[in-house]
Protein backbone atom coordinates (compact mmCIF):
# COMPACT_ATOMS: atom_id res chain seq x y z
CA UNK A 1 0.00 0.00 0.00
CA UNK A 2 1.28 3.44 -0.92
CA UNK A 3 1.61 5.62 2.20
CA UNK A 4 1.32 8.92 0.32
CA UNK A 5 -1.76 7.76 -1.60
CA UNK A 6 -3.45 6.71 1.63
CA UNK A 7 -2.57 10.03 3.21
CA UNK A 8 -4.02 11.95 0.24
CA UNK A 9 -7.21 9.93 0.55
CA UNK A 10 -7.51 10.55 4.31
CA UNK A 11 -6.97 14.28 3.74
CA UNK A 12 -9.78 14.20 1.15
CA UNK A 13 -12.13 12.42 3.58
CA UNK A 14 -11.48 15.18 6.10
CA UNK A 15 -11.92 17.93 3.52
CA UNK A 16 -15.25 16.51 2.32
CA UNK A 17 -16.46 15.95 5.91
CA UNK A 18 -17.06 12.24 5.43
CA UNK A 19 -18.26 10.54 8.61
CA UNK A 20 -15.80 7.66 8.83
CA UNK A 21 -13.67 5.67 11.23
CA UNK A 22 -10.53 3.76 10.31
CA UNK A 23 -10.39 0.23 11.67
CA UNK A 24 -8.20 -2.79 10.88
CA UNK A 25 -4.44 -2.72 10.41
CA UNK A 26 -4.22 0.95 9.40
CA UNK A 27 -6.00 1.81 12.65
CA UNK A 28 -3.37 -0.28 14.46
CA UNK A 29 -0.80 1.85 12.65
CA UNK A 30 -2.39 5.15 13.64
CA UNK A 31 -2.55 3.85 17.21
CA UNK A 32 1.18 3.15 17.11
CA UNK A 33 1.99 -0.28 15.67
CA UNK A 34 3.41 -0.43 12.15
CA UNK A 35 2.52 -3.73 10.57
CA UNK A 36 2.00 -4.91 7.02
CA UNK A 37 -1.41 -4.47 5.40
CA UNK A 38 -2.82 -4.28 1.91
CA UNK A 39 -5.99 -2.38 2.64
CA UNK A 40 -7.44 0.67 4.34
CA UNK A 41 -10.57 -0.39 6.25
CA UNK A 42 -13.13 2.37 6.52
CA UNK A 43 -16.35 2.16 8.49
CA UNK A 44 -18.64 4.93 7.20
CA UNK A 45 -21.92 6.32 8.51
CA UNK A 46 -24.73 4.65 6.58
CA UNK A 47 -26.44 7.51 4.78
CA UNK A 48 -26.77 8.47 1.12
CA UNK A 49 -25.28 11.90 1.83
CA UNK A 50 -22.22 10.34 3.43
CA UNK A 51 -21.69 7.89 0.55
CA UNK A 52 -21.84 10.86 -1.85
CA UNK A 53 -19.22 12.66 0.23
CA UNK A 54 -17.01 9.58 0.15
CA UNK A 55 -17.28 9.40 -3.63
CA UNK A 56 -16.46 13.11 -3.94
CA UNK A 57 -13.39 12.56 -1.75
CA UNK A 58 -12.30 9.59 -3.88
CA UNK A 59 -12.80 11.50 -7.14
CA UNK A 60 -10.64 14.33 -5.81
CA UNK A 61 -7.65 11.98 -5.54
CA UNK A 62 -8.38 9.45 -8.32
CA UNK A 63 -9.70 10.10 -11.81
CA UNK A 64 -11.66 6.89 -12.30
CA UNK A 65 -15.23 6.47 -13.65
CA UNK A 66 -15.39 3.17 -11.79
CA UNK A 67 -16.05 5.19 -8.61
CA UNK A 68 -19.61 5.65 -9.94
CA UNK A 69 -20.15 1.95 -9.17
CA UNK A 70 -19.85 2.64 -5.44
CA UNK A 71 -23.50 3.31 -4.65
CA UNK A 72 -25.60 4.14 -1.63
CA UNK A 73 -28.16 1.61 -2.88
CA UNK A 74 -25.57 -1.16 -2.44
CA UNK A 75 -23.94 0.07 0.76
CA UNK A 76 -27.26 0.73 2.48
CA UNK A 77 -28.83 -2.38 0.97
CA UNK A 78 -27.61 -5.88 0.21
CA UNK A 79 -23.89 -5.07 -0.08
CA UNK A 80 -22.64 -3.39 3.12
CA UNK A 81 -19.02 -4.26 2.20
CA UNK A 82 -17.49 -2.68 -0.93
CA UNK A 83 -13.88 -2.90 -2.04
CA UNK A 84 -12.22 -0.36 -4.32
CA UNK A 85 -8.81 -0.37 -6.00
CA UNK A 86 -7.80 2.59 -8.23
CA UNK A 87 -6.34 2.02 -11.72
CA UNK A 88 -2.73 2.36 -10.50
CA UNK A 89 -3.28 -0.22 -7.72
CA UNK A 90 -1.64 2.09 -5.19
CA UNK A 91 -4.08 1.19 -2.43
CA UNK A 92 -7.18 -0.80 -1.66
CA UNK A 93 -10.02 0.48 0.49
CA UNK A 94 -12.57 -1.77 2.11
CA UNK A 95 -15.68 0.30 2.80
CA UNK A 96 -18.15 -0.94 5.37
CA UNK A 97 -21.54 0.32 6.54
CA UNK A 98 -22.45 -2.64 8.75
CA UNK A 99 -20.46 -5.31 10.54
CA UNK A 100 -22.87 -8.18 11.20
CA UNK A 101 -25.27 -7.57 14.03
CA UNK A 102 -22.52 -6.69 16.49
CA UNK A 103 -21.27 -3.31 15.25
CA UNK A 104 -23.05 -0.29 13.79
CA UNK A 105 -21.32 2.99 12.97
CA UNK A 106 -23.25 4.84 15.67
CA UNK A 107 -22.02 2.39 18.32
CA UNK A 108 -18.32 2.59 17.40
CA UNK A 109 -15.92 3.94 20.00
CA UNK A 110 -13.75 6.38 18.03
CA UNK A 111 -11.21 9.11 18.65
CA UNK A 112 -9.34 11.78 16.71
CA UNK A 113 -5.60 11.16 16.44
CA UNK A 114 -2.66 12.77 14.65
CA UNK A 115 -1.37 11.03 11.53
CA UNK A 116 1.63 12.59 9.79
CA UNK A 117 0.28 16.14 9.73
CA UNK A 118 -3.41 15.18 9.53
CA UNK A 119 -5.96 14.50 12.24
CA UNK A 120 -8.03 11.42 11.46
CA UNK A 121 -10.92 9.45 12.97
CA UNK A 122 -9.94 6.04 14.20
CA UNK A 123 -11.52 3.30 16.31
CA UNK A 124 -10.09 3.30 19.84
CA UNK A 125 -7.82 0.48 21.03
CA UNK A 126 -10.69 -0.92 23.11
CA UNK A 127 -13.01 -0.76 20.10
CA UNK A 128 -10.43 -2.45 17.87
CA UNK A 129 -9.94 -5.14 20.48
CA UNK A 130 -13.68 -5.80 20.60
CA UNK A 131 -13.80 -6.08 16.81
CA UNK A 132 -10.82 -8.41 16.56
CA UNK A 133 -10.84 -10.66 19.60
CA UNK A 134 -13.42 -13.21 18.43
CA UNK A 135 -12.60 -13.32 14.74
CA UNK A 136 -11.38 -16.40 12.90
CA UNK A 137 -8.32 -14.90 11.23
CA UNK A 138 -5.07 -15.56 13.04
CA UNK A 139 -3.65 -12.08 12.35
CA UNK A 140 -6.74 -10.45 13.90
CA UNK A 141 -6.28 -12.53 17.02
CA UNK A 142 -2.61 -11.52 17.14
CA UNK A 143 -3.66 -7.86 16.82
CA UNK A 144 -6.18 -8.32 19.63
CA UNK A 145 -3.49 -9.76 21.88
CA UNK A 146 -1.08 -6.92 21.03
CA UNK A 147 -3.77 -4.33 21.82
CA UNK A 148 -4.62 -6.05 25.07
CA UNK A 149 -0.99 -6.04 26.20
CA UNK A 150 -0.21 -2.50 25.05
CA UNK A 151 -3.31 -0.78 26.42
CA UNK A 152 -3.98 -2.99 29.45
CA UNK A 153 -7.41 -3.99 28.19
CA UNK A 154 -9.30 -6.30 30.53
CA UNK A 155 -11.80 -8.97 29.49
CA UNK A 156 -14.71 -9.92 31.65
CA UNK A 157 -13.24 -12.48 34.00
CA UNK A 158 -9.74 -10.94 33.96
CA UNK A 159 -8.49 -10.09 37.41
Amino acid sequence: MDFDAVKRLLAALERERVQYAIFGAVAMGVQGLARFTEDLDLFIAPSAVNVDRLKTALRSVVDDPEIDNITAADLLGDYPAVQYVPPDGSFQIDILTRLGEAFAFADLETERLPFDGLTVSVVTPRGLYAMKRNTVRLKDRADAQALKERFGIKDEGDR
Partner: protein
Amino acid sequence: MPVRKFRSVEEMKTLAWRRPGDPELARALASVWSFGRRLRPSPLQPGVRKFKSIAEMKSR
Protein backbone atom coordinates in the same frame (compact mmCIF):
# COMPACT_ATOMS: atom_id res chain seq x y z
CA MET B 1 18.35 2.15 11.28
CA PRO B 2 20.75 1.70 14.22
CA VAL B 3 21.37 -1.64 15.95
CA ARG B 4 19.26 -2.04 19.09
CA LYS B 5 19.93 -4.50 21.88
CA PHE B 6 17.41 -6.00 24.29
CA ARG B 7 17.61 -8.03 27.45
CA SER B 8 14.47 -10.03 26.60
CA VAL B 9 11.90 -10.65 23.86
CA GLU B 10 9.29 -8.91 26.03
CA GLU B 11 11.39 -5.74 25.98
CA MET B 12 11.52 -5.89 22.16
CA LYS B 13 7.73 -6.16 21.94
CA THR B 14 7.11 -3.00 23.93
CA LEU B 15 9.44 -1.01 21.70
CA ALA B 16 7.52 -2.01 18.56
CA TRP B 17 4.80 0.45 19.60
CA ARG B 18 5.21 4.17 19.10
CA ARG B 19 3.09 7.09 20.21
CA PRO B 20 0.37 8.30 17.79
CA GLY B 21 1.73 11.27 15.86
CA ASP B 22 5.39 10.27 16.35
CA PRO B 23 7.18 11.14 13.05
CA GLU B 24 9.09 7.87 13.36
CA LEU B 25 5.75 6.03 13.28
CA ALA B 26 4.85 7.56 9.90
CA ARG B 27 8.27 6.59 8.54
CA ALA B 28 7.85 3.02 9.84
CA LEU B 29 4.37 2.71 8.32
CA ALA B 30 5.54 4.02 4.94
CA SER B 31 8.46 1.60 4.99
CA VAL B 32 6.45 -1.49 6.00
CA TRP B 33 3.64 -0.80 3.52
CA SER B 34 6.06 -0.11 0.70
CA PHE B 35 8.01 -3.29 1.44
CA GLY B 36 4.77 -5.31 1.49
CA ARG B 37 3.75 -3.84 -1.85
CA ARG B 38 7.07 -4.83 -3.43
CA LEU B 39 6.69 -8.39 -2.14
CA ARG B 40 3.19 -8.83 -3.56
CA PRO B 41 3.33 -11.47 -6.34
CA SER B 42 0.70 -9.75 -8.51
CA PRO B 43 -0.68 -6.19 -8.55
CA LEU B 44 -4.01 -5.34 -6.93
CA GLN B 45 -6.88 -5.68 -9.39
CA PRO B 46 -8.43 -2.25 -10.05
CA GLY B 47 -12.18 -1.77 -9.77
CA VAL B 48 -15.15 -1.99 -7.43
CA ARG B 49 -16.23 -5.28 -5.86
CA LYS B 50 -19.31 -5.78 -3.70
CA PHE B 51 -19.87 -8.24 -0.88
CA LYS B 52 -22.73 -9.24 1.39
CA SER B 53 -20.49 -9.29 4.48
CA ILE B 54 -17.03 -8.41 5.70
CA ALA B 55 -16.31 -12.12 6.13
CA GLU B 56 -16.97 -12.69 2.43
CA MET B 57 -14.83 -9.69 1.51
CA LYS B 58 -11.87 -10.68 3.68
CA SER B 59 -11.92 -14.31 2.52
CA ARG B 60 -10.97 -13.24 -1.03
